[in-house]
């Protein structure tokens, strides 16, 4: 008979999960061992592709096809003392199904796509009760209402009969949590549950999970790539890299005395983003009286739905300066950025852009010819490095595209492409390759090379580093600052990530519901915010230091509290 120490609910030993591919087996999880203790939180961290999510799914045997568990054991201890090895069960059998949802429940990253869009949330939550306890009808409804109250969904009696798309992201994740809690599981596996959420919503969800964990005495396995979140909630940490465990131990030790080189690097790249970049600290400040390169005044854009996406926005950018625009999803920051290139046509306001020859043009009213010239001088970098590059063109062709439009030909164009690739840290010899052959970070470099190809003066970077792992993020920001100094660029840097803004921006504008609520020097806004919304935003950001956990003490901005239910509009409008 197997024995397990007290408190240990789940013990994973030497777990190996692999995916057969054309070139052989890909070992997504390779000899991972850990133990989950009652009432404790174990965070599994790692960058994309590290196998953390596959580890979680292996426990419930719900790894996507064609993955399968090759070896190791997953021991689950029940309250009655019996122990089952989940790894030995048939993934389609009855035994594993009684564990799923009842003893071990799971919540997922994308609450929208992880819930069915055509079933009412009450049905989806109630189903778990029916499957495991045969609870139906009125009794089921009562229990679902109780669960909805537990996860603090407003007006549960009406919410129960609604569909997922009628909820905001945070509310959807609460529905997922309610679903997971339905059968009082002993273990809750949370697979990046807050990654798709705004920081303030993330803070709410994290507190909720903590609260419910305490109330139910659950063990939580929390998977994330965000070291800030880890520092805020973890008791123990497991660091994964390419399917292997790099290091594991108490959170304090991982953050303050990491033994492993990879862990040190990971913590280092997070901590680096906690302060302003060195190159920016050393640089002389931009003269205050320099005439602005772009001066936006009273810009407004109303969508046909009646939503004021951009509401009376005024801002300016000086030459060589980086202006950060920070805000949560639905704040209108992306829409505003697109207005600057006239992808959208704002109805009101002026956007005065100073041309190199000294005279000024209003982008809002510019004619076709002027607009064409302006779009050569104002370029954009997009968030998604995968979808913003054509998969059918070689990297050389992608970077050459704007040069071709500018009329550059033959040898000269080839040389310029090679020069650009070198500038962004890519080998010119790779020009014949297609985008899919590059990693996420490299693809974003291609995007940058394309943006700077025609020597622009202003670049609008829309969440340019959001899709990248944290270790790549600072590299990318360093590259952008290097190019800024070399080419005399100005940036408008749109991001929801305050650490990125703090790292590289000279000034920052905080957007909330289409308006700019605060604008000022980055240091001043970060350390002495004047607007309550900015304070709330800043205090909700997880701080990567387990000795200073503070999102539980965060400041909440309630002045115009969003109606929690039935306001999916801003989210669907955020085109980022």
């Amino acid at each position, binding site marked *: 008979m197997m024995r397990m120490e007290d408190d240990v609910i789940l013990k994973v030993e030497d777990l190996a999960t692999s995916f057969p591919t054309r070139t052989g087996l890909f070992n997504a999880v390779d000899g991972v061992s850990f133990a989950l203790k009652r009432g404790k939180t174990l965070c599994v961290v790692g960058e994309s592709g590290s196998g953390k999510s596959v580890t979680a*799914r292996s426990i*419930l045997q*719900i790894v*996507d096809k064609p993955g399968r568990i090759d070896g190791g054991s997953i021991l689950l201890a029940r309250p009655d003392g019996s122990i089952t090895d989940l790894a030995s069960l048939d993934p*389609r059998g*009855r035994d594993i*199904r*009684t*564990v*799923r*949802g*009842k003893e071990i*429940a*799971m919540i*997922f990253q*994308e609450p929208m*796509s*992880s*819930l*069915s*869009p*055509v*079933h009412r949330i009450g049905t989806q939550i109630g*189903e*778990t009760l029916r*499957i*495991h306890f045969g609870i139906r009808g009125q009794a089921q409804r009562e229990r679902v209402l109780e669960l909805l109250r537990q996860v603090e969904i407003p007006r549960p009696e009406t919410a129960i009969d609604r*569909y997922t*798309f*009628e909820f905001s992201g945070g509310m959807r994740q609460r529905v*997922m949590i309610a*679903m997971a809690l339905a059968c009082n599981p002993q273990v809750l596996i949370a697979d990046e549950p807050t990654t798709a959420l705004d920081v303030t919503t993330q803070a709410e969800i994290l507190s909720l999970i903590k609260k419910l964990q305490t109330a139910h005495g659950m063990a939580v396995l929390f998977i994330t790539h965000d070291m800030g979140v880890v520092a805020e909630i973890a008791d123990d940490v497991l660091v994964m890299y390419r399917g292997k465990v790099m290091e594991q131990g108490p959170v304090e030790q991982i953050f303050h005395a990491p033994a492993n080189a990879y862990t040190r690097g990971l913590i280092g790249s997070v901590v680096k983003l906690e302060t302003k970049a060195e190159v920016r600290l050393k640089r002389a400040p931009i003269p205050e009286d320099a005439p602005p390169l772009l001066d936006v005044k009273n810009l407004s854009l109303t969508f046909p739905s009646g939503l004021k996406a951009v509401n009376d926005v005024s801002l300016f950018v000086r030459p060589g300066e980086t202006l950060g625009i920070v805000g949560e999803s639905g704040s209108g920051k992306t829409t505003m950025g697109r207005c600057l290139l006239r992808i959208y046509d704002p109805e009101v306001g002026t956007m005065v852009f100073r041309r190199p020859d000294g005279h000024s043009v209003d982008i809002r009213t510019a004619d076709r010819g002027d607009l064409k010239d302006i779009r050569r001088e104002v370029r954009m970098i997009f968030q998604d490095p995968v979808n913003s590059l054509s998969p059918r063109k070689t990297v050389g062709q992608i970077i050459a595209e704007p040069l071709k439009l500018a009329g550059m030909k033959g040898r000269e164009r080839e040389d310029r492409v090679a020069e650009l690739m070198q500038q962004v840290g890519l080998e010119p010899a790779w020009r014949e390759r297609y985008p899919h052959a590059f990693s996420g970070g490299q693809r974003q470099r291609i995007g940058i090379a394309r943006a700077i190809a025609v020597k622009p003066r202003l670049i609008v970077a829309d969440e340019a580093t959001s899709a990248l792992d944290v270790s790549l993020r600072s590299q990318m920001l360093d590259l952008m600052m290097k190019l800024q100094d070399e080419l005399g660029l100005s940036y408008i840097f749109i991001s929801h990530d305050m650490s990125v803004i703090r790292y590289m921006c000279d000034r920052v504008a905080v957007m909330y519901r289409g308006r700019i609520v605060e604008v000022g020097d980055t240091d001043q806004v970060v350390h002495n915010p004047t607007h309550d919304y900015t304070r709330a935003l800043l205090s909700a950001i997880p701080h990567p230091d387990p000795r200073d956990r503070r999102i539980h003490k965060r400041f909440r901005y309630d002045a115009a509290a969003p109606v929690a239910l039935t306001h999916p509009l801003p989210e669907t409008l955020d085109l980022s």
Partner: protein
Amino acid sequence: MFAVPTLFAVSIIAFIIIQLPPGDYLTTLMADWASQGGAVEAGTVAAMRERYGLDQPMYFQYYKWMAGILMHGDFGISFELGKPVTELIWSRLGFSLLLSLLTLCFVWAIAIPIGILSAVRQYSISDYTATFLAFFFLAVPDFLLALSAMYTMSAWFGQSVGGLFSAQYIDADWSFGKLLDFAQHVWLPVVVIGLGSLAALVRIMRANLLDELSKPYVTTARAKGMSELELLIRYPVRLALNPLISTLGWILPAVISGEIIVSVVMSLPTTGPLLLRALLAQDMYLAGSLILLISVLTIIGTLVSDLLLALTDPRIRFQ
């Protein structure tokens, strides 16, 4: 809401189409008489032309025709058969509709399970077989299928084929025996008309389901502890059906046009053969009314599929 102007546009187009061929019913009639050696006086033609209103401008003829339909439900008179169009059409239209509906039911009932099987067991023998057969029937023309089916049935099984009833029941009143006889006859045309659309639907169902099977909500449901079969029916199949419902809009016209050809070949008492004859004879009110009614059915089908879709998919309902 767009159904009404669409119907109006369709009626105009139907009318223009039947006016398009050079000449009119009378020229066809003259040609017939002339070929039979009869001499025709110019005066007779003019008189007949005036009687039928064929000497008036096209828009006026259209106006008269539409006014008749809208005010009195009068679709005009068939020149050739000398009877009101309404009388000729209704019974045949009923059979057309019945045949189309039966075909739709048959197609859905067969296509959905095969599509599901094909998707769930992707790249298995059953998937390949279904795919092969689907493409095969998609490629074979309706009339060829009808001919070979008729040949097979009568030559090898000795069953009477063609028509919807045996001779003794054609003019009989409805009875149990007639119903049984109808069932014996109707399945063959249903299968023949259905096979082409069936193949298309199997492919659509398979593709839809394959998309849905890899969606995260399937994993969520699995993580709840739901059994694989219940999971399959309740989530991915349920969602994969939605796009299938919207195919109703184009399956219906496909079935109806397939029905025309097959009905001619198998001599079914539906609108198909009647339409063909009316077109050949330039019997303009009969042809026009048939085209109009078939189009109306199609538009209604599309409307029904939209309504059904709104009923089954809350995302559309809430827009």
